[in-house]
C-alpha cells in the first residue's frame, strides 16, 4: 500500500500499514480544504457584487497601500517555501532537528504577514474605512479578515505541532499532521493570490 502514501511523507523504515492509514486522513483533509474553498468562493463572489456598494464611503484608492500588500505577499509566499523546506526535512532526514527550525522560520514569516495586515486594517480604520461604513467595506473586511483568521489558526497549529514534536517526537501521527498543516499553509497562499488579484490589484485597476 505504501505506493499510495503521500510522496512527501517519510513514515519510517518499518512502515507497515501506516501508509494506507495516512491515505484516509490526507484525503479527508483535501475534502475539508475543498469545502473551505467554497466558503472563500462565496465571499469572493459577494465582494465582486458589492464592489460599487460604497454608499459614499472610501474605496480602494484611498484605503489600499500596495507597497505593504506586496511585502505581505512576499512574506507569505516565502513562508510557504520555508514550509516546503520543513517538509523536505521531514521526508529525507525525518528528524526533529531538520523540521523544527524551518517550522519556526515559517511561523515568524507568517507572524510578520499578520502584523502588516493588522497595521493595514488599523490604518484603513483611521481613514474611515471601517466595515460599518458601507456594504463594500463589510465585504472587504470579511474576505480579507477570514484569510487573516486562517493564518492565525495556522500559527496556532504550528505552535501545537512544535509542542507535539517536543513531547512525542516524530511519530507517524505527528508526521501525518505536519503534512496536513503543509497542505493548509499552501492553501492559504492560493487564497491570498486570489485576494491579491481580485481585491488589491483589481481594486486599483
Amino acid at each position: 500500500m505504501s505506493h499510495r502514501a503521500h510522496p512527501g511523507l517519510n513514515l519510517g523504515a518499518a512502515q507497515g500499514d501506516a501508509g494506507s492509514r495516512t491515505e484516509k486522513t490526507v484525503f479527508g483533509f483535501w475534502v475539508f480544504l475543498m469545502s473551505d474553498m467554497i466558503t472563500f468562493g462565496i465571499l469572493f463572489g459577494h465582494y465582486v457584487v458589492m464592489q460599487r456598494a460604497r454608499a459614499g464611503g472610501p474605496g480602494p484608492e484611498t484605503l489600499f497601500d500596495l507597497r505593504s500588500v506586496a511585502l505581505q505577499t512576499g512574506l507569505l509566499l516565502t513562508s510557504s517555501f520555508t514550509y516546503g523546506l520543513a517538509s523536505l526535512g521531514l521526508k529525507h532526514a525525518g528528524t526533529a532537528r531538520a523540521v523544527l527550525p524551518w517550522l519556526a522560520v515559517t511561523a515568524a514569516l507568517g507572524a510578520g504577514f499578520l502584523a502588516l495586515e493588522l497595521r493595514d486594517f488599523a490604518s484603513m480604520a483611521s481613514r474611515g474605512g471601517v466595515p460599518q461604513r458601507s456594504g463594500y467595506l463589510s465585504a472587504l473586511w470579511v474576505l480579507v479578515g477570514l484569510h487573516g483568521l486562517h493564518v492565525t489558526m495556522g500559527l496556532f497549529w504550528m505552535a501545537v505541532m512544535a509542542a507535539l514534536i517536543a513531547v512525542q517526537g516524530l511519530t507517524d501521527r505527528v508526521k501525518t499532521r505536519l503534512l496536513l498543516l503543509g497542505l493548509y499553509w499552501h492553501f492559504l497562499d492560493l487564497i491570498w493570490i486570489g485576494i491579491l488579484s481580485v481585491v488589491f490589484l483589481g481594486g486599483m485597476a
Partner: protein
Amino acid sequence: MGAPFGRLDWSATPFDDFLRNPSLNEAVSSGAALTVVLGAAATLWLLTRHHLWGPLWRDWLTSPDHKRIGIMYVVLAGVMFLRGVLEGAVMRTHQVSALNGGILSPDHYAQLFSTHGTIMIFFVATPLVTGLINFAVPLQIGARDMAFPVLNQVSLGLTASGAGLVMLSLVLGQFGTGGWTMYPPFTGATFSPGPGVDYWIWAVGLSGIGSTLAGMNIAVTIYKLRAPGMTFLRMPMFTWTALCTAIMMVYAFPAVTASTAMLALDRVAGFHFFTNDLGGNMMQYANIFWMFGHPEVYIVVLPAFGVYSEISATFAAKRLYGYNSLVIATMAIAVVSFAVWLHHFFTMGQNGRINAAFGIATMVIAVPTGVKVYDWMATLFRGRVRITVPIIYLTGFFILFVFGGLTGVILANPAINYQLHNSQFVVAHFHNVLVPGTLFGMFAGIHYWFPKAFGFRLDEKLARRTALLWVAGFCLAFLPLYWLGLMGMPRRAASYDNPAFQPAMWLAFGGAAILVAALASLIHTFWASARNRAALACPLGDPWDGRSLEWATSAPPPPYNFWAIPSVRALDPFTLEKAEGTPYAEADAYEDVDMPRHTALGMIVAVAGGALGLAMVWWIWWLAVLSGAAIVGAVVLRAFATNTHETIPAAEVAAAHRRFLAAIRTARAIGRDDEMLPANRGLADPAVPA
C-alpha cells in the same frame, strides 16, 4: 456590559407574561415552555431512578461506534419531530379560527411557522438522513466504522447543541419570526432587535458546521473504506445516494454557514451585508442562502430514494432494475440541484432571461427523478412483492411524490410562479415532496433497518396502521392547500377575511388531527414492539432475505461489524452467496481488530457548543469566551492523546464468529412469505430462489 448574564433576565420566560395576561395565546406558549421543562425533568428523573446514567454515558454518549451515533441522530430527530408535528397541529388549529382573528397572536403564529420549518429541515430531516447513513453505510460497504469515528461524535454534538438551542428558545425568550429562511432586512437588528433571530443563527450555524463535517466523513468513508472487490458499481444504491448527499453536504453547507455568519455580523457588529442602508443588499442573502437551501432539499431526499431502491429490490425479491441508470440519475440530480436556486425567488427582480434559464434547469431535474420512479416500478413489476410496511410507504410515495413533483414543474415556470408565489400552493408543494419523499422514505428505512439495529422487528400490524395513518393524514392535511393557493390564500398569513377559505381549512385541520394520531401510533408501535421483543427477535440478522452485506452479520452487529471483512464479487453479494449456498462461512484466518476507544470529546463539544450559542444569543460575553476556549482546548488536548485505540484479539473475534455460526446451524430457516411470523429469527430460507 455590566450584567453577568448579558440581556438575559427572568422576564425572558413566557410564564410572567401569562401571569400578567392569562389569555389562550399566552397559555399556549407557557404550556409549550412547561412541556420542555417537565419533559427534561422527567427524562432526568427516569434516568436517575433506573440508574441509567452510567450506561448512557459509557455505552452511548462517549461511543465512537457509527451504529450508536446513527441511532442517536435518529433519536434526536425523533424528539424534534414530536415538537415539529405538534407545532403543525397548533398552527392548523389556529388557522380554522383565523377568519378575521384567531386564537394566537400574529407574532406567536409567526414564531410557530419559523420554528416548525427550522426544526423540520435542520433538526428532523437532516439528522434523520445523517443518522440512517451513519448506521447503514459502513455495514453496507463492509467497513468496521466510519473513516473518522471521533469526528463523527463531534458532528452529532454540534447538531445536538443546535437542537438544544431551539428547544431552549421556548423557555428563554422567543424565536425569530422571519420564517425558516430568516430573510433580512426584516431579521436585521433594526426590525428584529430581540434574541429570536440569534437563536436561529446559532442553532443553524452550529448544526451546519456539524453537517459539513458529517458530509466529509461519509464521503471519505465511502471512497476509502469499501471492502475488497466492492467497486463503485457494486455499491448498494443507498450507499450511492449517501455518497451524493455527502458530496452535496460538503459543497452546500458552507453557504449557510457563511450567510448566517454574515447576518450575525450585521446584527451584532453593525456590518452592512444585507441592510437597507449604506450599500447593504438583501438579494445577496437570498442568493447565498438558497445556494445552500436548494441542494439541501436533495440532500434530504436522495437518501430516501436510496431506501426506496433497497426496499423495492428486497421486498420484490428481485434485482434492482436499471441500477446504472439509477446511479446516473442520482448523480445528475446532485449536480443540477446546484443550478436551480434562483427559482425560490423568481419574483424578486431578475430579468426574464435569467428566470427562464433557472426555470428550465428546474424542469430538467424532473427527468432523472422520473427515471428513478420508472426504475422502482420496473423492479416491482413481476416481482414476488410482499406488501410490508416499507412497501406501503413506497406505494404512498409513488402516487403522492409524483403529484408533488408535477406541481414543482408547474411552479418552475416563471410566468405561473408569479401567480402562485408566496401562496398556500407553495406550502402544499413542498410538503407534498418532502413528506412522501423524505419522511416516508426515512420511516421505511427505519422499519427496514430497525431489526438490524436492535435485534427485533417492529410489530408489523401496528406499523401498518401507523403507515396508513401517515398517508391518509398527509393527503387530507396538505392536498387542500393547493386549492387554497389557487383561490389566492397567501402562505404565512396569521389571519384571513375570505370565508371561502374555511371549508378547505377544516379539511386540513382534520388531516392534522389524523397526523397527530399517526404520531401517537408511531410511538405506540415502538413501545409495543419493544415490550414484545422476545417474540419479534431476529438475532441472526437477516429477517427480510436481504441482498447487501449488512444482512450477513448478526443483529445487532458486533461493535466491529464483521468478524472477517467480506470480499465482494458482484452487486447484491449476500444474495449471490445464498444462491450459491455459501453464506455464513468461517473465515480462513481472523485478524486482530483495531477499534477507537470511547472518548468524551463529542459531549464536550456538544455542551460547550450549546453554551457558546446561548452566550452569543444573550450577549453573555464571558461565557462565550469560556466555552470557545473549552472547545479549542479539548481539541488540542485530543491531539496529544496517544492511547486512542484498543485491539480486540483475533482469537476473541474468531470465537464470537463461531458462536454465531453455531446459532445459524441450529436455527430454522424461514421462507419470505412467513417473515412476519414469530418463527422468523433472522435466518432466510436459501431454498427460496431470489
